[in-house]
Every structure is written in structure tokens, then in C-alpha cells.
């Protein structure tokens, strides 16, 4: 299988070299929220210098003073304390709460997440246990019970809450680490002689830093909310000014002086909202382009050539000057198929050959009408028995798919829905196109499974995809494709993911079915051996264009285009056997600089 082929997703290709932080700077949402937070933090830091009063200075004469009273710009509360000074001090309280809560949760969560995820399963089950214990532990209870120890100090409270919040981080980190630790670069680092500690720090933690930073932003906001909620409930010392306590006190005075309630609510709201929005921006920056919805519909068409035009043709499939493009982040269209012309006659097998990125799969998807939602067909026509498929709606296309055109994918496993039995999926396809009853469809599927060479059709029918082998899954997919005797079968690298021995069997099966059903087959592949084995004609693609086409024999024996020649030349043929003897390092010792 060619990974290069798989990773091609022209709509989503990441632009080269832009650090997440630079991306953040270009995101207005991030800039605005971050500067808002920065201003608030600065105000908090400057509080000792700019606050007109001590937050606990209570003047009886100032009780419920109106905003604008001299010395009390925002008024005073029901204890005669200056609201503005209390607001400013509350900023520090919530920031310190956020810092303590988030950093404790992060420190614990990350440490144990790394340990639990990276090391063996025994250590993991220990950490799992400890964290499910922490998770099920009633937090408020712990706070109240520990009050004699904490003396109601909110910093201590946040420390405890940090511990209580850590399971969330632990899970995130552990899952990320489990994902990363099986990456080959971690293996490579081990082979390179790095210690576990260094691997964890340099290769694991560094790679998963994005999600952790995002989680930290949300955690920070969460810790601030927790502190506000606790203060609202009256847990802890009342001498510490905080938004929660101010909201709670202001709420009591709601009918007398609504502003007392409003100020802390607004400021708290602004802080938490900014953190949420900043977290979202961080997510966008670190996790790449936003997930775009995946609309299921026929591809967008920019310009339809002869939409209504249906002209009689002796060819089964005629692709003419097909151009497919994807929008780039800058909005321009990037063409990946640049004017492909292809002709397939009834009953013949055509190989569409090319290297990754040549546009062969895109062409195949265009014929089926299943291009990704972002794709745009810029121009061209695809005619099946003379009828132009471009511009047809999803509904119209559905009438053709499964009846006239069918498809065999490259990777058998990912093309079966893991949640349904193999049989159920095939039955659904057959019933969608034929309207057979459930029982009839089931009979038909069992017969088909037998036809594609499955030894125990009943058992396979009832199996889930993960219970069958890759070769078997490919046979199932072939059965699904030929179920309604299509006129045209598009096979996209149908054997690439399979072992050679299985590949040979699948090719045999395709050959037999093709003869039996008199289908035309478009075989998309990069493997010239496969082409040689099964194709009547070949079209060679390079950079979105067909550079050469002809009968199989012509192209193999007398390739005309230099690219075809180059490709054929690169094949490791049977004759090339290594003949030079091993060169021992000792023999080279004089020459190298060891």
C-alpha cells in the first residue's frame, strides 16, 4: 500500500511551516481574547497600586453607596466595602485559583498520564485505579472535612480541587501517550539509545503538547468557575474577596442595587468566556484546520459542458477533458486532475496506472460521483452510455450506483462499517438497488459470498468485519460490488493492501467475474505486474493527465512517453539479483574514520 496515496487529501494539506503560535497571532479571536485576559491580569497585578481601598475596609457610612460616590467609583457593598477594590482583588483571587487548580491538575495528570500510558499495563492498571478513586471521591465533602487543616484558605482549596480535576488530564494524556508510544519514531528513539525519561520528555510530551495546552486553557477557566461556585456557596474564608462571594452578596441585594450583582458577574463572565474562546482558538491552531462538515452530495460543478446533451456512443464510458480542483486556504483552486480523457468499452479492462498524486484515484471517484465535499469539478464530462453524469444530483447518481456502476476500494477493512455484520451491509446494498425482500436479499448474498470463493458463506455473513481476514474482506467487497451485475466496475487499487498470494487469488476472481458478467473494469493501480496480469488496455497518468494509453502489450513492449519508460525502467525485474559479495567492515577499516 502506498502511504503517500493515502495521505493525499488535497483539501486539507497543511501549509508548510507555520508554528501554532504564529497561527494564533493571525486569529482575531485569539488576539482579542488574549489581550482582554492580559488587560485583566495586568489590572490584577496593579491592584495594590490602583485600588482605592483595602478590599476589606468596611465603612459603615459607605454601606450600599451608589456608584460615583467620592472614593467609591463603583459604589460600595452592603458592608460598606469599595466594590471596585474588591473587583480588582477578586481578579487576583481567581487568577491564583486558576493557576493553582490548573497547574496541580496538569502536574499530576501529565505525570501519571505519561507513566500510565507509556509503561506496561500493570503500572497502568494501578494508576487507573487510583484515578477512578479520585474521580469517584466526593470533592465538596473533602473540602469541608479538611477545613480545619486548610483553614478555609482558597489556595489550599484549589490545591485539593487540582487533585480532583487531575483525572480528566490524566485520561487525555494517557490516551495521547498510548497513541504516540506505538509510533515508530518512539521505537526509533529507543533504538537510538535514548532513556525513557528523555523519550517521554522529548518525543512523547513534546508531540502531545498541543492538546495539553488546549486542556490547560479550559482547565484554567474551570478552576476559576469552581472557585467562584465555592465562594458563592460560602465555602472558605470570607476575608478573601472573590467573584463568587461578590455575586452571592450582590444577589442578596439584587432588588436594592442590581449593579452590585452585575459587576462581578460580568467580569467573571468575561474571564471565563475569554478562556473558552481562547481555548477554541488554541484548538484550531494546534489541531490544524477546523473540521469541515462532510456533506454527502454530488460534487460541486463549476461549468457543465453539455449538461442535457446525451449523445449515442459506442463506448460504455467516456471521460472527456475532466478537471478536478480543490480550494486552497487562500481561496484559489488547486487542480489535481488536469484534463483527463479516457474511454472504456463494454466488457474491457482498462488499467489506470500512475504514482501517488497522479490523480488516478480522483478520476475514479469523479466517475462514481463520490469526490470529497470540497472537490470542485471545473470542467469536462463523464458519459456513461452516452449520459453525462456531471451535474446529476446525488439522488440521480444513486440510481446509477450499484446498478450500472460499482466500486471496489483499496483498503478492505476501512471500507466495511465496523458496527454491522458483513451480511447486513451487503443485504442493505442489494435491497437499496433491487427492492428485494429481506429473505431474498439474504439468499442472494449467501450465493454471492459463495461465488467469490468464501468457504463458509453463512459464517462470514454473520461475522463482523474485524472478525475476518483482509483477503476475505476484499472478497466481501467484491461480492457487494458485483451484486447487481454492474456494467462498469471501478476497482481502486483492489489488491494493494493484500499479500501477493492473496492478490493473485483476487485477480483470478476479478478476471473470472469480469468474463462471467461481461463487465467493463477500470483498474486503478500503481503496480505494473497487476496491470500486466489483467488489463486489456492501459492509461498512464502523471500529474493529473493521461500521458500515454494503448493496449497492454503496446505500452509494455513499446512505451512511447518518457515517463512510462522511466516507470517501466524502475521495476525491479527478475533478472536483477545481487551478486557482489558482502564487504566486511574490517576490510574497510583502513578507509573509514571509525
Amino acid at each position, binding site marked *: 500500500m*502506498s*502511504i*503517500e496515496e493515502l495521505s493525499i487529501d488535497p483539501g486539507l494539506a497543511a501549509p*508548510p*511551516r507555520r508554528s501554532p503560535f504564529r497561527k494564533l497571532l493571525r486569529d482575531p479571536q485569539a488576539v482579542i481574547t488574549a489581550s482582554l485576559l492580559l488587560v485583566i491580569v495586568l489590572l490584577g497585578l496593579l491592584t495594590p497600586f490602583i485600588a482605592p481601598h483595602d478590599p476589606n475596609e468596611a465603612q459603615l457610612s459607605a454601606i450600599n453607596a451608589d456608584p460615583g460616590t467620592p472614593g467609591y467609583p463603583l459604589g460600595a457593598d452592603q458592608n460598606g466595602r469599595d466594590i471596585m477594590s474588591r473587583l480588582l482583588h477578586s481578579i487576583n483571587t481567581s487568577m491564583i485559583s486558576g493557576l493553582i487548580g490548573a497547574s496541580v491538575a496538569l502536574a499530576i495528570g501529565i505525570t501519571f498520564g505519561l507513566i500510565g500510558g507509556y509503561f506496561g499495563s500493570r503500572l497502568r492498571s494501578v494508576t487507573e485505579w487510583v484515578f477512578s478513586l479520585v474521580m469517584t471521591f466526593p470533592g465538596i465533602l473533602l473540602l469541608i472535612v479538611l477545613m480545619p487543616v486548610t483553614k478555609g484558605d482558597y489556595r489550599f482549596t484549589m490545591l485539593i480541587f487540582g487533585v480532583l480535576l487531575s483525572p480528566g488530564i490524566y485520561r487525555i494524556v494517557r490516551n495521547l501517550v498510548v497513541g504516540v508510544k506505538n*509510533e*515508530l*519514531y518512539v*521505537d*526509533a*528513539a*529507543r*533504538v*537510538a*539509545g*535514548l532513556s*525513557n525519561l528523555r523519550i517521554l520528555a*522529548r518525543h512523547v510530551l*513534546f*508531540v502531545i*503538547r498541543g492538546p495539553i495546552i488546549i486542556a490547560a486553557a479550559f482547565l484554567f477557566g474551570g478552576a476559576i468557575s469552581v472557585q467562584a461556585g465555592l465562594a458563592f456557596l460560602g465555602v472558605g474564608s470570607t476575608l478573601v474577596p472573590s467573584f463568587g462571594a461578590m455575586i452571592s452578596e450582590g444577589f442578596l441585594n439584587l432588588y436594592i442595587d442590581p449593579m452590585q450583582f452585575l459587576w462581578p458577574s460580568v467580569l467573571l463572565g468575561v474571564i471565563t468566556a475569554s478562556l473558552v474562546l481562547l481555548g477554541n482558538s488554541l484548538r484550531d491552531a494546534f489541531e490544524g484546520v477546523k473540521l469541515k462538515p462532510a456533506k454527502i452530495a454530488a460534487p460541486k460543478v463549476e461549468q457543465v459542458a453539455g449538461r442535457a446533451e446525451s449523445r449515442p456512443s459506442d463506448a460504455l464510458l467516456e471521460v472527456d477533458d475532466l478537471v478536478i480542483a480543490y480550494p486552497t486556504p487562500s481561496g484559489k483552486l488547486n487542480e489535481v486532475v488536469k484534463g483527463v480523457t479516457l474511454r472504456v468499452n463494454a466488457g474491457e479492462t482498462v488499467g489506470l496506472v500512475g*504514482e*501517488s498524486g497522479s490523480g488516478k484515484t480522483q478520476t475514479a471517484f469523479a466517475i462514481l460521483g463520490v469526490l470529497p465535499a470540497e472537490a470542485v469539478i471545473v470542467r469536462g464530462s463523464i458519459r456513461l452510455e452516452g449520459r453525462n453524469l456531471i451535474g446529476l444530483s446525488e439522488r440521480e447518481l444513486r440510481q446509477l450506483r450499484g446498478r450500472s456502476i460499482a466500486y471496489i476500494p483499496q483498503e478492505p477493512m476501512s471500507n466495511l462499517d465496523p458496527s454491522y455484520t458483513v451480511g447486513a451491509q451487503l443485504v442493505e446494498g442489494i435491497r437499496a438497488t433491487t427492492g428485494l425482500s429481506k429473505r431474498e436479499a439474504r439468499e442472494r448474498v449467501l450465493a454471492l459470498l459463495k461465488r467469490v470463493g468464501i468457504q463458509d458463506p453463512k459464517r462470514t455473513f454473520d461475522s463482523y468485519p474485524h472478525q475476518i481476514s*483482509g483477503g476475505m474482506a476484499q472478497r466481501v467487497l467484491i461480492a457487494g460490488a458485483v451484486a447487481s451485475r454492474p456494467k462498469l466496475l471501478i476497482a481502486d487499487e483492489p489488491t494493494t493492501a493484500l*499479500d*501477493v*498470494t492473496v492478490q*493473485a487469488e483476487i*485477480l483470478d476472481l476479478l478476471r473470472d467475474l469480469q468474463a462471467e458478467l461481461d463487465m467493463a473494469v477500470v483498474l486503478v493501480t*500503481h*503496480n*505494473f*505486474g*497487476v*496491470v*500486466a*496480469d489483467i488489463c486489456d488496455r492501459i492509461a498512464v497518468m502523471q500529474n493529473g493527465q493521461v500521458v500515454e494509453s494503448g493496449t*497492454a*502489450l503496446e505500452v*509494455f513492449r513499446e512505451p512511447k512517453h518518457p515517463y512510462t519508460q*522511466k*516507470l517501466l525502467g*524502475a*521495476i*525491479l*525485474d*527478475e533478472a*536483477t*539479483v*545481487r551478486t*557482489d*559479495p*558482502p*564487504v*566486511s*567492515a*574490517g*576490510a*574497510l577499516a583502513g578507509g*573509514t574514520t571509525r
Partner: protein
Amino acid sequence: MTNPLLEVTDLRVTYPGRGFRAKATEVLHGVSLTIGEGETLGVVGESGSGKTTIGRAVLGLVKPSGGRIIFDGQDITHVSAAERRKLARELQVVFQDPYTSLNPSMTVGDILSEPLVVQGATAKDARARVRTLLDQVGLPRDAAERLPREFSGGQRQRVAIARALAPEPKLIVCDEPVSALDLSTQAIVLDLFIEIQRRTGVAYLFVSHDLSVVRHISHRVSVVYKGDIVETGPAASVTSEPEHPYTQRLLLAAPIADPIEQEKRRAERYRLLEVHRQQAEQAGAVA
């Protein structure tokens, strides 16, 4: 031949079963092989045969449940983590997938210099060595400043090779190093492997599913089938006149890139399958 560089004797590897009380499965049932200095041993087999596990066991990435691995005269079957780290100078790896074998968040320069720094090189020496390495694998020098995702598959595999070459090892385990590459790139990278071997005298344990690739690079070839080595011999003979029925099937299943030759091979394959079928029937009848 004197003492081989790598000697694997009766290697067994067992994977614990997934889940509660699941049965453990043995994926290697006693595999033996040797590699001499500067030699390439091709290990060929299909998916699930255990070929990759051999390489991973030699690298210490999986723990053998039996057998011995002797490298350069030292028994490394069960060495400590610290010893294993020392081995990194001598024993290196190139993985199949150049997309996940390079840390996406490190520059190529960092990727290449990290093993050197870990082994005690100064930053300056490491930088110099990185330049040499990039030259050796045919990458431009400014590559050091860039991230892996800015390179094509073939170029990334060159980075991976350079990383393996960095400590000047005696043996590189190559786990399907070209199977993720395009046809034209594949040939070039293979030639790079051969060229480096000729130049440095490094030995390869070259694991692949593709007979033609193995044939191209190996001095000797071992065929793995369901956790056992069924055939070992010089590349030429194993890949053209195999003795074991499985190797024969494998050979004939690989299509030739020529319609007429391939038709012949196909016919030959049908004949062979028929023979095997009859043999199996007879064996069944006797039993």
C-alpha cells in the same frame, strides 16, 4: 566464515493475549539465522508471518520468550536497559513508514543529532556529522532546518536512513523500508542502501514482503512462513528456484510486469497449485 555479526538461535516470541484470561499467542516458533559483517540477509514473508517480529526482537523492542540473540559476540537476548542503550551505537533501524518514524515536531537536524548527543557528542560535532550524513543520503544541507512534513516520502526515508547511519552502526534492521514508497523512488532508495553498504560495510537485516525487493538487495534470503523460517539460501537460488512449496507459491504469485510473461507465470502457478492440491490429497489419504 568467522563468527557472524548476528546470530539468532531458536528465537521464540509470545504476545500476551488481549483482555482477561486471553490466551497468549506464539508468533515465532524458534527462528534461527545469522548475518555476517557487511552482509544483507533478506527476510521475506507475508503479513502475519512474524518477519517484523524478528527485527523487533533483535532491536529489543519485544522480549523474546525463548532462544538466544548474539550480536558481535555479546549475548543481547535479555540485556538491561542501560546495556541496550550502549548497543545503540552498533545496532540501528530503518522503519517501514517514513511518516510515523520521524517525530513530526522536530526538525530534521534535531532528529539526526539527537542520537549523537545522547551518545556524548558535542553540539558542534553533531552538527558537522549531520551535514555529512545529509550528504551521504543525498539530501540538501538546508534540510536540517526543516520539519519532516516538508519532505516527500522518499526524502523522509533518506532522513530515516541518515538517522540510522549517524552512530556508524554495524547492523541496521530495515523493516520494509521501501514498501511505502512509489515505484520510481523505491529503486533509488534501494540503490542508496546498497551504495551505503558498500561504502561503510554495514550489515542489513532486511525485512520485506516483496520478493523482488529482497532479491535486489540481499546476499542471502530467509523465507518466513507462519512463525518459522522455511528456507534460507543465497538470494539467487531462493528467489528463482525455491525448494519449499510456500516459497514456490510466493514466487509465482508475484506478477511480472509484462502481459505475455505474466500469462506464462500464471499458467505455471495454476499447475503448481494443482500439484500441491494433489499432494495434500495424497497426504490426507495416507493419513
